């Protein structure tokens, strides 16, 4: 088997059939696609719930020719369907020019093709094992379809094995004839939709000196990975950064490797997760010229100076200058085209500065010195693009 490299961070996934095929009754399509999802839920703890409206994880459409994603279908035969990996949204499209059939040696079996496409939606690439469902070629209708071991290993490497279910035996101990599923998972996703998925508004986000990105919200924190939230989070802020309260306003790591946290009129300094001296101290003492109750702060890579944001204004702080804040500050954030007021968080990531507000984020273009508002992709969903929801 082959993995594309992304997977869902939640076990409960929703799907919606936005456009049904022309040649099959809708209720029968519902049944076949439900069966196709069950192929994968049989061997993992994934569950799939069909919705008729609203936002879902996996959208399914039957389309002909060009259908808006730049990858047109080619009529009967050839390409039957395609699907997007989790990192690209997980949607599955089927060529409506095919003769989709159910339990028939004629036409193209909908259940088998759908099960294959949903494998992509879950993160599997094509397998070079001929007998695998995830092999790319359609093999014709198989009345006694069974998922190949190769597919089972592939999906379980992404989502772990199906949990042992208590069979109701005395004392809750599985009986001798109980399930034979393994009890360990290789990389289990979150138990349920992360809090960050249901409410992506955060307190602050910052880069650590070790190169990690942390998200703070209330009294808990998460570490982010390249494709979402790291396994094992959230954790309590107070357990990791001893002496630091929850509901932090802002944080950044300066070029001296020390991390500064701000809340109300006070700030704390840490080296890694160890407090670096006697804190908290007053912002007015350590950061003269910066107001209390700031929204967010970030160190701009362009000049190494610290930018503090509050409401409609921002301040530039240069520790090497006296005074560290010039009298030309504060300035209006509206001077930077596109930047919203009352920010929640900001962070530098791969050379860009990102600003977060509510459930959305914005990207600042250092070259044009403005927000990437010309790009219709912004503002984007923080939950989707940063938290892997």
């Amino acid at each position, binding site marked *: 088997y082959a993995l594309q490299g992304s997977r869902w961070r939640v076990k409960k996934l929703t799907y919606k059939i936005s456009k049904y095929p022309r040649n099959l009754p809708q209720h029968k399509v519902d049944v076949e696609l439900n069966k196709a999802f069950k192929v994968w839920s049989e061997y993992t703890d994934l569950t799939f719930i069909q919705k008729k409206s609203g936002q879902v994880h996996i959208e399914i459409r039957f389309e002909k020719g060009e259908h808006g994603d730049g990858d047109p279908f080619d009529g009967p035969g050839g390409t*039957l369907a*395609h699907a997007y*990996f989790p990192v*690209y949204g997980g949607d599955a499209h089927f060529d409506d020019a095919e003769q989709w059939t159910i339990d028939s040696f004629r036409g193209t079996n909908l259940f088998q*093709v759908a099960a294959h*496409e949903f494998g992509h939606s879950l993160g599997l690439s094509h397998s070079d094992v001929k007998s695998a469902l995830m092999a790319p070629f*359609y093999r014709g209708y198989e009345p006694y379809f069974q998922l190949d071991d190769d597919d089972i290993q592939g999906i379980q490497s992404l989502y772990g094995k199906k949990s042992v279910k208590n069979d109701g035996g005395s004392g809750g101990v599985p009986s001798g004839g109980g399930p034979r599923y393994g009890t360990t998972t290789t990389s289990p996703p979150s138990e349920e939709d992360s809090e960050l998925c249901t409410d992506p508004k955060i307190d602050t986000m910052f880069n650590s000196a070790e190169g990690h990105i942390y998200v703070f919200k209330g009294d808990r924190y998460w570490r982010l990975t*390249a494709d979402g939230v790291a396994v094992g989070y959230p954790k309590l802020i107070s357990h990791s950064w001893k002496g630091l309260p929850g509901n932090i306003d802002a944080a950044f790591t300066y070029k001296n490797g020390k991390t500064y946290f701000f809340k109300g009129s006070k700030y704390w300094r840490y080296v890694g997760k160890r407090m670096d001296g006697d804190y908290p101290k007053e912002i007015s003492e350590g950061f003269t010229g910066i107001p209390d109750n700031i929204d967010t702060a970030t160190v701009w890579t362009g000049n190494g100076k610290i930018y503090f944001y509050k409401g409609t204004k921002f301040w530039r702080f240069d520790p090497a200058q006296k005074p560290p804040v010039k009298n030309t500050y504060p300035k209006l954030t509206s001077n930077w085209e596109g930047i919203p007021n009352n920010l929640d968080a900001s962070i530098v990531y791969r050379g860009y500065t990102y600003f977060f507000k509510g459930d959305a984020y914005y990207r600042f273009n250092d070259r044009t010195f403005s927000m990437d508002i010309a790009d219709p992709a912004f503002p984007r969903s923080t939950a989707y693009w940063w938290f892997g929801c």
Partner: protein
Amino acid sequence: APVISQTAAMNYLSQFGYLQPMNPTSGGIISQDALSKAVAEFQAFAGLNITGDFDEETFKLMALPRCGVKDKVGPGFGRSKR
């Protein structure tokens, strides 16, 4: 008998990730070596005899209905996150 042309076969290899997409500025020319390597990779993936040539068996497999997702998914595929 083969049921797709050599041009269609090259498009197929390009579509499913075995050949770089044709570059219009270079006239869409692909070296014989690159083509042979791509054919061999496809044959290896599909479990065919690895000849590096467009033989009948290869053409036949290319004519089968299949999934539209690329077989070779590597860096640069799709849009990057964030």
